[in-house]
Protein backbone atom coordinates (compact mmCIF):
# COMPACT_ATOMS: atom_id res chain seq x y z
CA UNK A 1 0.00 0.00 0.00
CA UNK A 2 1.28 3.47 -0.90
CA UNK A 3 2.34 5.59 2.05
CA UNK A 4 0.20 8.60 3.04
CA UNK A 5 0.87 11.78 1.11
CA UNK A 6 1.76 14.58 3.50
CA UNK A 7 2.50 17.23 0.90
CA UNK A 8 0.93 17.25 -2.53
CA UNK A 9 1.67 20.12 -4.86
CA UNK A 10 0.10 20.08 -8.28
CA UNK A 11 0.65 22.65 -10.99
CA UNK A 12 1.77 25.16 -8.37
CA UNK A 13 2.51 28.52 -9.93
CA UNK A 14 3.36 31.93 -8.54
CA UNK A 15 3.80 35.03 -10.65
CA UNK A 16 4.93 38.42 -9.41
CA UNK A 17 3.95 40.83 -12.19
CA UNK A 18 6.30 39.78 -15.03
CA UNK A 19 8.37 37.34 -12.98
CA UNK A 20 7.33 33.70 -12.72
CA UNK A 21 8.88 32.55 -9.46
CA UNK A 22 7.34 29.06 -9.47
CA UNK A 23 6.07 27.47 -12.63
CA UNK A 24 3.80 24.42 -12.70
CA UNK A 25 5.56 22.65 -9.85
CA UNK A 26 4.42 19.16 -8.93
CA UNK A 27 5.73 17.12 -6.03
CA UNK A 28 4.64 14.60 -3.45
CA UNK A 29 6.12 14.04 -0.02
CA UNK A 30 5.14 10.89 1.86
CA UNK A 31 4.88 10.27 5.59
CA UNK A 32 8.31 9.62 7.09
CA UNK A 33 10.22 11.11 4.15
CA UNK A 34 13.16 13.38 4.62
CA UNK A 35 12.56 15.26 1.42
CA UNK A 36 15.36 17.36 -0.05
CA UNK A 37 14.16 20.44 -1.90
CA UNK A 38 17.20 21.53 -3.79
CA UNK A 39 17.95 24.46 -6.02
CA UNK A 40 20.24 27.44 -6.39
CA UNK A 41 19.37 30.78 -4.82
CA UNK A 42 16.41 32.31 -6.60
CA UNK A 43 15.17 28.96 -7.89
CA UNK A 44 11.78 29.40 -6.21
CA UNK A 45 12.35 27.29 -3.09
CA UNK A 46 11.35 29.90 -0.53
CA UNK A 47 8.40 31.06 -2.62
CA UNK A 48 7.16 27.47 -2.73
CA UNK A 49 7.57 27.13 1.03
CA UNK A 50 5.80 30.45 1.62
CA UNK A 51 2.88 29.17 -0.45
CA UNK A 52 2.83 25.90 1.51
CA UNK A 53 2.61 27.90 4.74
CA UNK A 54 -0.04 30.30 3.38
CA UNK A 55 2.23 33.31 3.65
CA UNK A 56 1.60 34.03 -0.01
CA UNK A 57 -1.19 32.98 -2.30
CA UNK A 58 -0.47 30.89 -5.39
CA UNK A 59 -1.35 32.27 -8.79
CA UNK A 60 -2.34 28.79 -9.90
CA UNK A 61 -2.30 25.14 -8.88
CA UNK A 62 -3.20 23.30 -5.72
CA UNK A 63 -1.62 22.62 -2.36
CA UNK A 64 -2.79 19.69 -0.29
CA UNK A 65 -1.26 19.07 3.11
CA UNK A 66 -2.17 15.93 5.07
CA UNK A 67 -4.58 15.15 2.23
CA UNK A 68 -6.55 18.36 2.70
CA UNK A 69 -6.60 21.50 0.55
CA UNK A 70 -4.62 24.18 2.38
CA UNK A 71 -7.06 26.96 1.52
CA UNK A 72 -10.03 25.43 3.29
CA UNK A 73 -8.14 23.82 6.17
CA UNK A 74 -5.43 26.36 6.91
CA UNK A 75 -5.65 26.42 10.71
CA UNK A 76 -6.05 22.67 11.12
CA UNK A 77 -3.16 21.95 8.79
CA UNK A 78 -0.78 24.55 10.21
CA UNK A 79 -1.26 23.05 13.68
CA UNK A 80 0.62 19.97 12.43
CA UNK A 81 3.49 21.94 10.90
CA UNK A 82 6.63 23.42 12.39
CA UNK A 83 8.68 25.61 10.11
CA UNK A 84 11.61 27.87 9.61
CA UNK A 85 11.14 30.19 6.65
CA UNK A 86 14.40 31.70 5.44
CA UNK A 87 16.24 33.32 8.33
CA UNK A 88 14.59 32.89 11.71
CA UNK A 89 13.54 36.28 13.03
CA UNK A 90 12.36 36.76 16.58
CA UNK A 91 11.25 39.52 18.90
CA UNK A 92 14.72 40.81 19.63
CA UNK A 93 13.67 42.66 22.76
CA UNK A 94 12.35 39.46 24.37
CA UNK A 95 14.32 36.56 25.83
CA UNK A 96 14.70 33.23 24.06
CA UNK A 97 12.37 31.69 26.63
CA UNK A 98 9.69 34.37 26.21
CA UNK A 99 9.85 34.09 22.42
CA UNK A 100 9.23 30.36 22.60
CA UNK A 101 6.47 30.81 25.15
CA UNK A 102 4.67 33.35 22.97
CA UNK A 103 5.00 31.34 19.76
CA UNK A 104 4.05 28.13 21.55
CA UNK A 105 0.94 29.72 23.05
CA UNK A 106 -0.21 30.96 19.65
CA UNK A 107 0.36 27.47 18.22
CA UNK A 108 -1.68 25.97 21.03
CA UNK A 109 1.07 23.62 22.15
CA UNK A 110 2.50 22.69 25.54
CA UNK A 111 4.25 25.80 26.85
CA UNK A 112 5.21 24.48 30.26
CA UNK A 113 8.62 25.54 31.51
CA UNK A 114 9.74 21.91 31.31
CA UNK A 115 8.80 21.64 27.63
CA UNK A 116 10.39 24.95 26.65
CA UNK A 117 13.61 24.13 28.50
CA UNK A 118 13.64 20.69 26.88
CA UNK A 119 13.53 22.32 23.44
CA UNK A 120 16.23 24.82 24.35
CA UNK A 121 18.33 21.94 25.66
CA UNK A 122 17.83 20.06 22.39
CA UNK A 123 19.24 22.94 20.36
CA UNK A 124 21.98 23.79 22.87
CA UNK A 125 20.57 27.09 24.12
CA UNK A 126 19.40 26.11 27.60
CA UNK A 127 22.08 28.19 29.29
CA UNK A 128 21.00 31.30 27.36
CA UNK A 129 17.27 30.91 27.98
CA UNK A 130 17.06 34.22 29.79
CA UNK A 131 19.14 36.23 27.31
CA UNK A 132 17.44 38.66 24.98
CA UNK A 133 17.50 37.44 21.39
CA UNK A 134 19.19 40.67 20.28
CA UNK A 135 22.36 39.33 21.91
CA UNK A 136 22.28 36.11 19.84
CA UNK A 137 24.50 35.35 16.87
CA UNK A 138 22.93 34.26 13.58
CA UNK A 139 23.76 30.64 14.38
CA UNK A 140 22.04 30.88 17.75
CA UNK A 141 18.95 32.39 16.16
CA UNK A 142 18.99 29.52 13.67
CA UNK A 143 19.00 27.06 16.59
CA UNK A 144 16.21 28.95 18.30
CA UNK A 145 14.35 28.75 15.00
CA UNK A 146 14.61 24.99 15.17
CA UNK A 147 13.36 25.01 18.75
CA UNK A 148 10.27 27.06 17.85
CA UNK A 149 9.57 24.78 14.90
CA UNK A 150 9.63 21.70 17.14
CA UNK A 151 7.96 23.15 20.23
CA UNK A 152 4.39 22.11 19.46
CA UNK A 153 5.45 18.61 18.40
CA UNK A 154 4.47 18.92 14.71
CA UNK A 155 4.10 15.98 12.33
CA UNK A 156 5.67 17.84 9.42
CA UNK A 157 8.78 19.96 9.78
CA UNK A 158 9.59 22.42 7.01
CA UNK A 159 13.12 23.74 7.15
CA UNK A 160 14.23 26.42 4.74
CA UNK A 161 18.03 26.41 4.58
CA UNK A 162 18.38 25.46 8.26
CA UNK A 163 22.17 25.30 8.27
CA UNK A 164 22.77 28.76 6.84
CA UNK A 165 25.12 30.67 9.11
CA UNK A 166 26.10 27.65 11.18
CA UNK A 167 29.68 26.49 11.68
CA UNK A 168 30.58 22.96 10.50
CA UNK A 169 29.87 21.52 13.94
CA UNK A 170 26.52 23.29 14.03
CA UNK A 171 25.69 22.00 10.56
CA UNK A 172 26.45 18.46 11.66
CA UNK A 173 24.28 18.88 14.74
CA UNK A 174 21.35 20.06 12.62
CA UNK A 175 21.81 17.10 10.27
CA UNK A 176 21.91 14.72 13.23
CA UNK A 177 18.81 16.35 14.67
CA UNK A 178 16.91 15.99 11.40
CA UNK A 179 17.89 12.32 11.17
CA UNK A 180 16.89 11.79 14.81
CA UNK A 181 13.50 13.43 14.22
CA UNK A 182 12.91 11.33 11.16
CA UNK A 183 14.16 7.98 12.43
CA UNK A 184 13.31 8.10 16.11
CA UNK A 185 10.27 10.36 16.15
CA UNK A 186 8.81 9.43 12.76
CA UNK A 187 8.54 13.06 11.62
CA UNK A 188 8.25 14.02 7.99
CA UNK A 189 10.88 16.58 7.07
CA UNK A 190 10.83 18.92 4.09
CA UNK A 191 14.31 20.33 3.82
CA UNK A 192 15.15 23.12 1.44
CA UNK A 193 18.79 23.66 0.62
CA UNK A 194 21.15 24.85 -2.05
CA UNK A 195 23.85 22.44 -0.88
CA UNK A 196 23.69 19.08 -2.64
CA UNK A 197 25.98 17.42 -0.12
CA UNK A 198 23.69 18.38 2.75
CA UNK A 199 20.65 16.87 1.07
CA UNK A 200 22.62 13.78 0.07
CA UNK A 201 23.57 13.15 3.69
CA UNK A 202 20.09 13.23 5.16
CA UNK A 203 17.38 13.07 2.54
CA UNK A 204 15.64 9.94 1.32
CA UNK A 205 14.00 11.61 -1.68
CA UNK A 206 14.78 14.83 -3.46
CA UNK A 207 13.80 17.24 -6.17
CA UNK A 208 15.93 19.84 -7.89
CA UNK A 209 14.22 22.97 -9.08
CA UNK A 210 15.61 25.85 -11.06
CA UNK A 211 13.83 28.97 -12.28
CA UNK A 212 10.68 27.70 -10.63
CA UNK A 213 10.44 24.44 -12.54
CA UNK A 214 11.31 20.83 -11.71
CA UNK A 215 14.60 19.64 -13.15
CA UNK A 216 15.13 16.24 -11.55
CA UNK A 217 13.13 14.19 -9.07
CA UNK A 218 13.61 10.80 -7.45
CA UNK A 219 15.16 8.98 -4.56
CA UNK A 220 18.57 10.20 -3.47
CA UNK A 221 19.94 6.71 -4.01
CA UNK A 222 18.67 6.65 -7.56
CA UNK A 223 19.92 10.08 -8.41
CA UNK A 224 23.26 10.21 -6.64
CA UNK A 225 24.47 6.62 -6.32
CA UNK A 226 24.07 6.01 -10.01
CA UNK A 227 26.74 3.79 -11.50
CA UNK A 228 26.95 5.96 -14.58
CA UNK A 229 29.36 8.76 -13.98
CA UNK A 230 31.35 11.30 -15.90
CA UNK A 231 35.08 10.47 -15.77
CA UNK A 232 37.50 13.25 -16.51
CA UNK A 233 40.89 11.88 -17.69
CA UNK A 234 44.08 13.95 -18.18
CA UNK A 235 46.54 12.26 -20.55
CA UNK A 236 49.86 13.18 -22.20
CA UNK A 237 48.73 12.25 -25.73
CA UNK A 238 45.03 12.88 -26.26
CA UNK A 239 44.97 11.92 -29.98
CA UNK A 240 46.47 8.51 -29.28
CA UNK A 241 44.23 8.03 -26.23
CA UNK A 242 41.12 8.83 -28.30
CA UNK A 243 42.27 6.37 -31.00
CA UNK A 244 42.79 3.66 -28.40
CA UNK A 245 39.45 4.25 -26.74
CA UNK A 246 37.66 4.23 -30.10
CA UNK A 247 39.10 0.77 -30.72
CA UNK A 248 37.95 -0.52 -27.36
CA UNK A 249 34.71 -1.55 -25.69
CA UNK A 250 34.39 2.12 -24.45
CA UNK A 251 34.22 3.63 -27.91
CA UNK A 252 30.68 4.98 -27.32
CA UNK A 253 31.67 6.62 -24.04
CA UNK A 254 33.64 9.65 -25.20
CA UNK A 255 31.58 12.71 -24.37
CA UNK A 256 33.92 15.59 -24.79
CA UNK A 257 37.55 16.58 -25.36
CA UNK A 258 39.30 19.70 -24.07
CA UNK A 259 42.96 19.69 -25.08
CA UNK A 260 44.58 16.79 -23.25
CA UNK A 261 41.53 16.20 -21.13
CA UNK A 262 38.87 13.69 -22.11
CA UNK A 263 35.45 13.27 -20.51
CA UNK A 264 33.84 9.84 -20.74
CA UNK A 265 30.39 8.82 -19.61
CA UNK A 266 30.74 5.31 -18.26
CA UNK A 267 30.09 2.79 -15.52
CA UNK A 268 32.26 3.61 -12.53
CA UNK A 269 33.26 -0.07 -12.11
CA UNK A 270 35.15 0.13 -15.41
CA UNK A 271 37.34 3.07 -14.39
CA UNK A 272 40.21 0.87 -13.21
CA UNK A 273 40.19 -1.23 -16.39
CA UNK A 274 40.24 1.89 -18.60
CA UNK A 275 43.15 3.30 -16.66
CA UNK A 276 45.06 0.03 -16.98
CA UNK A 277 44.30 -0.19 -20.72
CA UNK A 278 45.64 3.30 -21.39
CA UNK A 279 48.75 2.84 -19.27
CA UNK A 280 49.55 -0.54 -20.89
CA UNK A 281 49.37 1.23 -24.25
CA UNK A 282 51.97 3.79 -23.15
CA UNK A 283 49.55 6.61 -22.39
CA UNK A 284 50.49 8.53 -19.31
CA UNK A 285 47.38 9.21 -17.19
CA UNK A 286 48.07 12.12 -14.88
CA UNK A 287 44.56 12.47 -13.45
CA UNK A 288 41.38 10.47 -13.43
CA UNK A 289 38.49 12.23 -11.70
CA UNK A 290 35.06 10.62 -11.48
CA UNK A 291 32.20 13.13 -11.27
CA UNK A 292 28.59 12.20 -10.78
CA UNK A 293 26.55 13.73 -13.56
CA UNK A 294 23.91 15.12 -11.21
CA UNK A 295 26.59 16.80 -9.15
CA UNK A 296 28.07 18.30 -12.28
CA UNK A 297 24.66 19.43 -13.43
CA UNK A 298 23.87 20.97 -10.08
CA UNK A 299 27.23 22.70 -9.99
CA UNK A 300 26.47 24.15 -13.39
CA UNK A 301 23.13 25.64 -12.42
CA UNK A 302 24.53 26.86 -9.13
CA UNK A 303 27.47 28.52 -10.85
CA UNK A 304 25.05 30.04 -13.32
CA UNK A 305 23.38 32.08 -10.62
CA UNK A 306 26.46 34.22 -10.20
CA UNK A 307 26.76 35.04 -13.89
Amino acid at each position, binding site marked *: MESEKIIELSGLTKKFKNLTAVNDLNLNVYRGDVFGFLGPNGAGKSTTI*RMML*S*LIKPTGGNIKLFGKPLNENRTEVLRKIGAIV*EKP*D*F*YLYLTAYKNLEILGK*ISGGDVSKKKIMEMLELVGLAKRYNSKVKTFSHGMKQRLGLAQALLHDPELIILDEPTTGLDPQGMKEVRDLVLYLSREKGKTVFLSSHILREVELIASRMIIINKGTTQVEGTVKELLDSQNIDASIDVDNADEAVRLIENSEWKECIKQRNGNQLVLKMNKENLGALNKYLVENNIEVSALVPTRSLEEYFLKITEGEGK
Partner: protein
Amino acid sequence: MITMIIIELQKMFKKWRTYIGFIAIGFLTVIVQLSLYMEGDRYINMATRSLKDQFVMSGNLMNGYLIANLILNGLFVHIPFLIVLVGGDLLAGEATAGTYRMLVTRPVSRFRILTSKFLAGNIYVIAMICWLALLSLGVSLLVFGSGEMITFGGGITILGEGDILWRFAGAYMVAFVSLSTVFSLSFLFSSLVENAIGPIVASMAVIIIMIILSALDIDILRSIRPYLFTTHMGVWSRFFTDPVDYREVFKSVTVLLVHTAIFYGAALYIFKKKDILS
Protein backbone atom coordinates in the same frame (compact mmCIF):
# COMPACT_ATOMS: atom_id res chain seq x y z
CA MET B 1 -8.62 35.63 21.29
CA ILE B 2 -7.92 36.70 24.87
CA THR B 3 -4.59 34.84 24.83
CA MET B 4 -3.67 36.59 21.59
CA ILE B 5 -4.58 40.01 23.04
CA ILE B 6 -2.49 39.33 26.16
CA ILE B 7 0.44 38.30 23.97
CA GLU B 8 0.10 41.47 21.92
CA LEU B 9 0.01 43.57 25.08
CA GLN B 10 3.08 41.80 26.43
CA LYS B 11 4.94 42.48 23.20
CA MET B 12 3.76 46.10 23.12
CA PHE B 13 4.72 46.91 26.70
CA LYS B 14 8.16 45.35 26.28
CA LYS B 15 8.99 47.99 23.66
CA TRP B 16 10.30 51.29 24.91
CA ARG B 17 8.45 53.31 22.27
CA THR B 18 5.20 52.34 24.00
CA TYR B 19 6.25 54.45 26.97
CA ILE B 20 7.07 57.58 24.99
CA GLY B 21 3.44 58.67 25.17
CA PHE B 22 3.21 58.03 28.90
CA ILE B 23 6.47 59.87 29.55
CA ALA B 24 5.44 62.82 27.38
CA ILE B 25 2.03 63.14 29.03
CA GLY B 26 3.60 62.80 32.47
CA PHE B 27 6.20 65.44 31.70
CA LEU B 28 3.79 67.97 30.17
CA THR B 29 1.17 67.51 32.87
CA VAL B 30 3.67 68.13 35.63
CA ILE B 31 4.97 71.22 33.81
CA VAL B 32 1.44 72.65 33.49
CA GLN B 33 0.66 71.84 37.12
CA LEU B 34 3.89 73.44 38.33
CA SER B 35 3.31 76.56 36.24
CA LEU B 36 -0.24 76.96 37.50
CA TYR B 37 0.85 76.26 41.05
CA MET B 38 3.20 79.22 40.82
CA GLU B 39 1.22 81.57 38.58
CA GLY B 40 -2.33 80.24 38.78
CA ASP B 41 -3.81 83.32 40.41
CA ARG B 42 -2.52 85.56 37.63
CA TYR B 43 -4.12 83.23 35.09
CA ILE B 44 -7.49 83.34 36.87
CA ASN B 45 -7.32 87.12 37.16
CA MET B 46 -6.61 87.45 33.45
CA ALA B 47 -9.33 85.01 32.45
CA THR B 48 -11.99 86.64 34.63
CA ARG B 49 -10.89 90.24 34.15
CA SER B 50 -13.92 91.18 32.05
CA LEU B 51 -16.30 89.69 34.61
CA LYS B 52 -14.96 91.40 37.66
CA ASP B 53 -17.10 94.49 37.15
CA GLN B 54 -20.33 92.51 37.34
CA PHE B 55 -19.47 89.51 39.54
CA VAL B 56 -17.75 88.86 42.79
CA MET B 57 -15.49 85.84 42.46
CA SER B 58 -14.98 83.82 45.61
CA GLY B 59 -13.79 80.34 46.61
CA ASN B 60 -11.06 78.12 45.19
CA LEU B 61 -11.28 78.74 41.44
CA MET B 62 -7.78 77.46 40.71
CA ASN B 63 -8.74 73.93 41.68
CA GLY B 64 -7.99 70.43 40.39
CA TYR B 65 -11.00 70.36 38.08
CA LEU B 66 -10.03 73.54 36.26
CA ILE B 67 -6.45 72.35 35.87
CA ALA B 68 -7.53 68.95 34.55
CA ASN B 69 -9.75 70.72 32.04
CA LEU B 70 -6.95 73.06 30.98
CA ILE B 71 -4.56 70.14 30.56
CA LEU B 72 -7.11 68.24 28.50
CA ASN B 73 -7.59 71.32 26.32
CA GLY B 74 -3.88 71.82 25.88
CA LEU B 75 -2.81 68.25 25.27
CA PHE B 76 -5.66 66.79 23.32
CA VAL B 77 -4.37 68.06 19.99
CA HIS B 78 -0.99 66.45 20.66
CA ILE B 79 -1.95 63.09 22.13
CA PRO B 80 -2.90 61.71 18.67
CA PHE B 81 0.73 62.09 17.63
CA LEU B 82 1.77 59.91 20.56
CA ILE B 83 -0.88 57.33 19.74
CA VAL B 84 0.32 56.87 16.14
CA LEU B 85 3.81 55.98 17.39
CA VAL B 86 2.36 52.71 18.62
CA GLY B 87 -0.44 52.26 16.07
CA GLY B 88 1.89 52.71 13.11
CA ASP B 89 4.28 50.12 14.47
CA LEU B 90 1.83 47.35 15.32
CA LEU B 91 1.76 45.63 11.93
CA ALA B 92 4.59 47.27 10.01
CA GLY B 93 6.92 46.63 12.97
CA GLU B 94 6.36 42.89 12.58
CA ALA B 95 7.20 43.16 8.89
CA THR B 96 10.37 45.16 9.59
CA ALA B 97 11.52 42.66 12.21
CA GLY B 98 10.66 39.70 9.98
CA THR B 99 8.39 38.26 12.67
CA TYR B 100 5.35 38.35 10.37
CA ARG B 101 6.57 34.99 9.06
CA MET B 102 6.59 33.46 12.53
CA LEU B 103 3.20 34.90 13.34
CA VAL B 104 1.29 34.17 10.15
CA THR B 105 2.50 30.57 9.92
CA ARG B 106 0.88 29.79 13.29
CA PRO B 107 -2.46 27.97 13.33
CA VAL B 108 -4.54 31.08 13.86
CA SER B 109 -6.51 32.98 11.26
CA ARG B 110 -5.32 36.29 9.94
CA PHE B 111 -8.57 37.77 11.24
CA ARG B 112 -7.62 36.79 14.79
CA ILE B 113 -4.07 38.06 14.40
CA LEU B 114 -5.22 41.42 13.12
CA THR B 115 -8.16 41.80 15.49
CA SER B 116 -6.09 40.94 18.55
CA LYS B 117 -3.58 43.61 17.55
CA PHE B 118 -6.39 46.11 16.96
CA LEU B 119 -7.94 45.42 20.35
CA ALA B 120 -4.57 45.50 22.11
CA GLY B 121 -3.95 48.88 20.47
CA ASN B 122 -7.26 50.15 21.79
CA ILE B 123 -6.37 48.93 25.27
CA TYR B 124 -3.19 50.96 24.93
CA VAL B 125 -5.30 54.03 24.07
CA ILE B 126 -7.46 53.40 27.15
CA ALA B 127 -4.32 53.06 29.27
CA MET B 128 -3.06 56.36 27.91
CA ILE B 129 -6.34 58.12 28.78
CA CYS B 130 -6.37 56.56 32.25
CA TRP B 131 -2.83 57.81 32.75
CA LEU B 132 -3.87 61.27 31.62
CA ALA B 133 -6.88 61.18 33.95
CA LEU B 134 -4.80 59.97 36.86
CA LEU B 135 -2.17 62.67 36.42
CA SER B 136 -4.28 65.59 35.32
CA LEU B 137 -7.36 65.03 37.45
CA GLY B 138 -6.16 62.80 40.30
CA VAL B 139 -2.91 64.61 41.05
CA SER B 140 -4.42 68.05 40.44
CA LEU B 141 -7.24 67.38 42.92
CA LEU B 142 -4.68 66.25 45.47
CA VAL B 143 -2.45 69.27 44.97
CA PHE B 144 -4.97 72.04 44.23
CA GLY B 145 -8.07 70.69 45.96
CA SER B 146 -11.60 70.75 44.57
CA GLY B 147 -14.20 73.44 44.05
CA GLU B 148 -16.55 74.80 41.41
CA MET B 149 -15.26 74.66 37.90
CA ILE B 150 -15.21 77.60 35.59
CA THR B 151 -15.03 76.96 31.84
CA PHE B 152 -14.49 79.54 29.15
CA GLY B 153 -15.42 77.78 25.90
CA GLY B 154 -18.28 79.64 24.12
CA GLY B 155 -18.99 81.88 27.10
CA ILE B 156 -18.40 81.34 30.76
CA THR B 157 -19.95 78.39 32.54
CA ILE B 158 -19.63 77.69 36.22
CA LEU B 159 -20.26 74.09 37.19
CA GLY B 160 -21.12 73.08 40.74
CA GLU B 161 -18.62 70.90 42.60
CA GLY B 162 -21.00 67.95 42.71
CA ASP B 163 -21.76 68.27 39.01
CA ILE B 164 -18.28 67.78 37.61
CA LEU B 165 -16.87 64.28 38.05
CA TRP B 166 -19.41 62.59 35.79
CA ARG B 167 -18.61 65.15 33.11
CA PHE B 168 -14.95 64.19 33.26
CA ALA B 169 -15.94 60.53 33.03
CA GLY B 170 -18.00 61.28 29.90
CA ALA B 171 -15.26 63.47 28.44
CA TYR B 172 -12.62 60.77 28.90
CA MET B 173 -14.92 58.19 27.34
CA VAL B 174 -15.56 60.16 24.17
CA ALA B 175 -11.90 61.17 24.13
CA PHE B 176 -11.18 57.45 23.89
CA VAL B 177 -13.53 57.18 20.89
CA SER B 178 -11.73 59.96 19.04
CA LEU B 179 -8.24 58.69 19.90
CA SER B 180 -9.33 55.21 18.85
CA THR B 181 -10.15 56.66 15.41
CA VAL B 182 -6.66 58.14 15.20
CA PHE B 183 -5.19 54.82 16.28
CA SER B 184 -7.26 53.00 13.62
CA LEU B 185 -5.97 55.32 10.92
CA SER B 186 -2.34 54.59 11.82
CA PHE B 187 -3.20 50.90 12.09
CA LEU B 188 -4.58 50.97 8.54
CA PHE B 189 -1.42 52.62 7.24
CA SER B 190 0.60 50.08 9.19
CA SER B 191 -1.08 47.24 7.29
CA LEU B 192 -0.02 48.73 3.97
CA VAL B 193 3.73 48.90 4.35
CA GLU B 194 6.69 47.08 5.84
CA ASN B 195 8.34 49.92 7.69
CA ALA B 196 6.90 51.61 10.77
CA ILE B 197 8.17 55.10 9.95
CA GLY B 198 5.89 55.44 6.91
CA PRO B 199 2.61 54.87 8.75
CA ILE B 200 3.62 57.16 11.61
CA VAL B 201 4.52 60.03 9.30
CA ALA B 202 1.51 59.42 7.02
CA SER B 203 -0.92 59.38 9.96
CA MET B 204 0.52 62.60 11.34
CA ALA B 205 0.30 64.22 7.91
CA VAL B 206 -3.33 63.16 7.44
CA ILE B 207 -4.28 64.43 10.90
CA ILE B 208 -2.57 67.78 10.33
CA ILE B 209 -4.20 68.21 6.90
CA MET B 210 -7.64 67.29 8.24
CA ILE B 211 -7.30 69.56 11.26
CA ILE B 212 -6.44 72.43 8.91
CA LEU B 213 -9.38 71.56 6.65
CA SER B 214 -11.66 71.40 9.69
CA ALA B 215 -10.50 74.80 10.86
CA LEU B 216 -10.54 76.73 7.57
CA ASP B 217 -13.65 78.83 7.22
CA ILE B 218 -14.15 78.50 3.49
CA ASP B 219 -17.54 77.78 1.88
CA ILE B 220 -16.38 74.85 -0.20
CA LEU B 221 -14.93 73.11 2.87
CA ARG B 222 -18.01 73.63 5.00
CA SER B 223 -19.89 70.89 3.19
CA ILE B 224 -17.22 68.24 3.83
CA ARG B 225 -16.27 69.37 7.31
CA PRO B 226 -19.01 67.39 9.13
CA TYR B 227 -17.62 64.19 7.62
CA LEU B 228 -14.01 64.71 8.66
CA PHE B 229 -13.18 62.85 11.84
CA THR B 230 -10.92 65.67 13.01
CA THR B 231 -13.95 67.98 13.16
CA HIS B 232 -15.35 65.75 15.90
CA MET B 233 -12.22 65.10 17.91
CA GLY B 234 -13.00 67.89 20.35
CA VAL B 235 -16.38 66.35 21.23
CA TRP B 236 -15.19 65.73 24.79
CA SER B 237 -15.43 69.45 25.52
CA ARG B 238 -19.21 69.31 25.08
CA PHE B 239 -19.41 67.60 28.47
CA PHE B 240 -18.33 70.87 30.06
CA THR B 241 -21.24 72.90 28.69
CA ASP B 242 -24.50 73.18 30.54
CA PRO B 243 -26.70 71.47 29.55
CA VAL B 244 -24.72 68.85 27.61
CA ASP B 245 -25.90 68.70 24.00
CA TYR B 246 -26.21 64.93 23.76
CA ARG B 247 -27.49 65.13 20.18
CA GLU B 248 -24.21 66.67 19.08
CA VAL B 249 -22.22 64.23 21.21
CA PHE B 250 -24.07 61.31 19.64
CA LYS B 251 -23.54 62.70 16.13
CA SER B 252 -19.81 63.17 16.70
CA VAL B 253 -19.36 59.77 18.30
CA THR B 254 -21.20 58.17 15.36
CA VAL B 255 -18.95 59.87 12.80
CA LEU B 256 -15.87 58.80 14.76
CA LEU B 257 -17.07 55.19 15.13
CA VAL B 258 -17.90 54.96 11.42
CA HIS B 259 -14.37 56.15 10.61
CA THR B 260 -12.91 53.60 13.03
CA ALA B 261 -14.95 50.80 11.47
CA ILE B 262 -13.89 51.81 7.96
CA PHE B 263 -10.21 52.00 8.91
CA TYR B 264 -10.35 48.64 10.71
CA GLY B 265 -12.30 46.99 7.86
CA ALA B 266 -9.84 48.25 5.27
CA ALA B 267 -6.87 47.06 7.36
CA LEU B 268 -8.48 43.62 7.71
CA TYR B 269 -9.16 43.35 3.98
CA ILE B 270 -5.59 44.34 3.13
CA PHE B 271 -4.05 42.05 5.73
CA LYS B 272 -6.10 39.03 4.64
CA LYS B 273 -5.08 39.52 1.01
CA LYS B 274 -1.49 40.41 1.72
CA ASP B 275 1.42 38.30 0.49
CA ILE B 276 3.95 38.12 3.31
CA LEU B 277 7.23 38.69 1.52
CA SER B 278 9.24 40.20 4.38
